[in-house]
């Protein structure tokens, strides 16, 4: 069920500023794909072009062969695309479970009248997905927090909740925007394990934007490095880390030595 994502010559302009210049790559179904580059290189913009929050100025974005550039994010969600955000955006006063259940929105049947009347179909579906959401939380070590308000959880746990929310959408293609940012080392390890398991158990294609080279190296099958809106190189993480252009533009000489 994992989706194939194809980008061809994607360009994006704001006013006169070229944010992306003819970026293209193919993510095979089931791959874990990394997107790296310095701040301002256009990674998040590219992400937004894929998720429909931006409309590329030119070029095509295909999910399983169907052109989707310019489609609204809400439509793309129907195509099996899910994403997380750089700063996890949870409903802080709602419980963790309610937050996760939001991901089930498109899978729940029925119009407003049906829900207002609490017809059996809606109630049954809600009950089933509630159970599924709890199981999902449990599987990700968050079962204990299901009924706590989200604002009582730490930043790192928010990221986990957000991931569960995206997973409850049963996506074919998952975009993760800086999942490791602000996480202490131990939690990054957990994250790596989680994403690995995702691929094995859930059959999802994953695209990750991340600065944490350790995570990129440990997880990804392929990476694309962006710089100034253009593709600098494509290959494995190891190739990227040893590519002099990447070191120059992204990792920095000394830092490359430091990063153990």
């Amino acid at each position, binding site marked *: 069920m994992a989706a194939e994502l194809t980008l061809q010559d994607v360009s994006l302009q704001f006013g006169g500023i070229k944010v992306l210049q003819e970026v293209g790559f193919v993510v095979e179904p089931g791959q874990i794909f990394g997107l790296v580059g310095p*701040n*301002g290189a256009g990674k998040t913009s590219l992400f937004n072009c894929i998720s429909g929050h931006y409309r590329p100025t030119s070029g095509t974005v295909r999910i399983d062969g169907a052109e989707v550039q310019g489609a609204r994010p809400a439509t793309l969600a129907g195509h099996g695309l899910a994403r997380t955000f*750089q700063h996890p955006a949870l409903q802080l006063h709602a419980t963790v479970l309610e937050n996760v259940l939001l991901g089930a929105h498109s899978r729940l049947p029925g119009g407003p009248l049906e829900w207002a009347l609490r017809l059996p179909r809606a109630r049954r579906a809600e009950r089933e997905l509630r159970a599924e959401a709890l199981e999902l939380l449990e599987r990700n070590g968050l079962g204990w927090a299901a009924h706590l308000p989200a604002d009582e959880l730490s930043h790192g746990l928010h990221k986990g909740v957000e991931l569960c929310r995206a997973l409850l959408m049963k996506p074919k293609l998952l975009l993760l925007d800086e999942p490791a940012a602000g996480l202490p*080392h131990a*939690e990054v390890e957990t994250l790596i394990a989680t994403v690995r398991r995702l691929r094995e158990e859930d059959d999802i294609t994953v695209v990750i934007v991340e600065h944490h080279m350790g995570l990129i190296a440990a997880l990804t099958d392929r990476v694309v490095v962006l710089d100034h809106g253009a593709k600098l190189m494509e290959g494995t993480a190891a190739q990227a880390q040893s590519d002099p252009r990447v070191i120059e533009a992204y*990792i920095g000489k000394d830092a490359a030595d*430091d990063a153990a």
Partner: protein
Amino acid sequence: MTLLELEGVTASYGPVQVLDGVSLRVPDNGAVGILGANGAGKTTTLRAISGTVRAGGRIVFDGKDIRGLRPDRVAALGIAHVPEGRGTLGDLTVRENLRVGAYLRKDAKGVAQDIDYCLDLFPNLQNRIRSNASALSGGEQQMLAVARAIMSKPRLLLLDEASLGLAPSTAKNVYDAIRRLRIESGIAMVVVEQNANLAFTLVDSATVLETGRNVLTGTSAELRGMDEIRRAYLGG
């Protein structure tokens, strides 16, 4: 000569005690790191110093007890806080942000010079000078946040997670600039940093916090050599 001294500082959010007796000593021109896991109380320690949380214990800056002072009074004494998440003024332009930073200064000429100095320190800001801060990239915002802080000509800089969300090379650039600033101006610093490797490029000594208490204090060299520290906090 000690510029800043914390002794047995406590703080809580509601009934939740976050600082449980933190001590810290920053010499004149010194730079001290605070390391630790999420929720260990690093950020809260900085907030206690800058007056944004109510704290107990003793906080002495330049011989004066500053505990309980309002944030703007603390700033007026020469302590500049660069908060986590940068705290730039989004609707204001880069230049306006810098001018706000110099709010307390009366020397117009000196302010103009310092703006030039900041732009020299962070060349990326040069061509964004008229942009709204909210339109800057993450790295540029971090640079702006630091630049705005030094516009007040502080004697002590509180730096909270300056590398958060930055690409390695960008984070390095920011730290390079701060190191240069330290060398050129001699501003003392308290640096909270998740990435301990990066922190050690800047600070002389550091303390490790755990559940609101100091558990280890030492020079950079000492701490860097300790295996357990490496494993637990440095991601090694």
